[in-house]
């Protein structure tokens, strides 16, 4: 598939707009999903995913063909998503990381008024319960966990996509796994 995409990108670079349609078709679910995981809602995800594809098209000449296109595209989508999160209205700022902590957001400082996990399990199918718990993870863990286990990027690639050091990727993936384990251990 990589070869096909590489060819398509070459055509796009030569000015063939139609060739880009195949590229979008191939990546649309992945990028949309990535944005969805980062932003947590469908409306913004669609918005940002579209913007990511448009940005990639406009800046296609700055894409270095020796590198993986998917990494480049994910990087654009990631940056746009982060921008969007920053521009959110103040009531969303609970999502923001607390300075000096690695990934602790304001939510972690609030007392929970949710039902106990056991009670929740009973009211939900296992699949959607897991989905729900994943979505409940702080965005930075959620994103990394998804890139690692759903998109199957290597740790190095994730470090490039998110533009954070490899060590940070490892720390976050460890914490993300632990957080999710705690949430799902009662199942």
């Amino acid at each position, binding site marked *: 598939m990589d070869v096909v995409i590489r060819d398509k990108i070459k055509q796009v670079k030569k*000015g063939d707009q139609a060739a*880009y349609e195949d590229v*979008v078709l191939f990546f649309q679910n992945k990028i*949309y999903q990535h944005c969805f995981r980062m932003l947590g809602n469908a409306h913004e995800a669609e918005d940002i995913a579209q913007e990511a*594809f448009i940005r990639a098209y406009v800046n296609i000449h700055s894409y270095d063909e020796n590198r993986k296109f998917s990494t480049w595209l994910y990087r654009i989508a990631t940056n746009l998503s982060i921008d969007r999160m920053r521009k959110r209205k103040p009531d969303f700022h609970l999502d923001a990381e607390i300075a000096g902590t690695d990934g602790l957001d304001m939510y972690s400082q609030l007392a929970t008024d949710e039902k106990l996990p056991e009670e929740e399990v009973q009211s939900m199918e296992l699949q959607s319960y897991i989905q729900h718990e994943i979505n409940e993870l702080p965005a930075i863990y959620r994103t990394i966990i998804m890139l690692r286990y759903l998109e199957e990027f290597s740790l190095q690639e994730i470090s490039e996509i998110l533009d954070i050091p490899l060590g940070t990727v490892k720390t976050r993936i460890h914490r993300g796994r632990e957080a999710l384990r705690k949430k*799902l251990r009662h199942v």
Partner: protein
Amino acid sequence: MDCKKDVIPLMHHFLDGDISREDETKLRKHLEQCSDCQKHFHELKRTISWIKNAEPVMAPVDFTQQVMQKLPTEKKHVKYMRWFKMHPVITAAAIFFILMLSGAFSAWQQDSKLTVSKQDDLIIQGDTVIVPEGVTVDGDLVVKNGNLKIEGTVDGNVTLINGKLIQDQLNGEGLMASVGEVNGEFKKVDQVFEWIWFNLQNLFRGVFSFE
């Protein structure tokens, strides 16, 4: 070994695939003895397999069409600029060609002074160079931007650039007789230049015409 401090990080290193053999053995040995850690490790692995089975989120049905519609239609100059970027060699050649032509053209324009190769016994009257009667000029004679009248003898080639050879009509004799003796080739260059210039001008008009 402390379970929380030492063993759990080892589990994560194992799951990331960057664990040394030594540590892996350590981890295995510990897991055999410690049921708490076993449970923890099992839960982690189970969590991962659940994540992998998470339902993928699908993009809306018309997503691609939406993107394609929103792509900027390319403005013409963007298209040209991209073409230039795509063909750097041709662009460089074209720029070089234009510079060279304009250079040649301005040199042509400026260089309208009368110049004569340095030889003795030549008489210059206004823009006319005269080889007087009874004089023999040694070597090649070059006259640029002026007329030439040969009454004497030239021992070499004569090149006449952008000028006319003046025939002495008063003699009433034949053409050859009016020209003094030239013991070499006689070349008249202006016609060639004019011809090239005429053609280049036509070419330019063709290329840059906006009509």
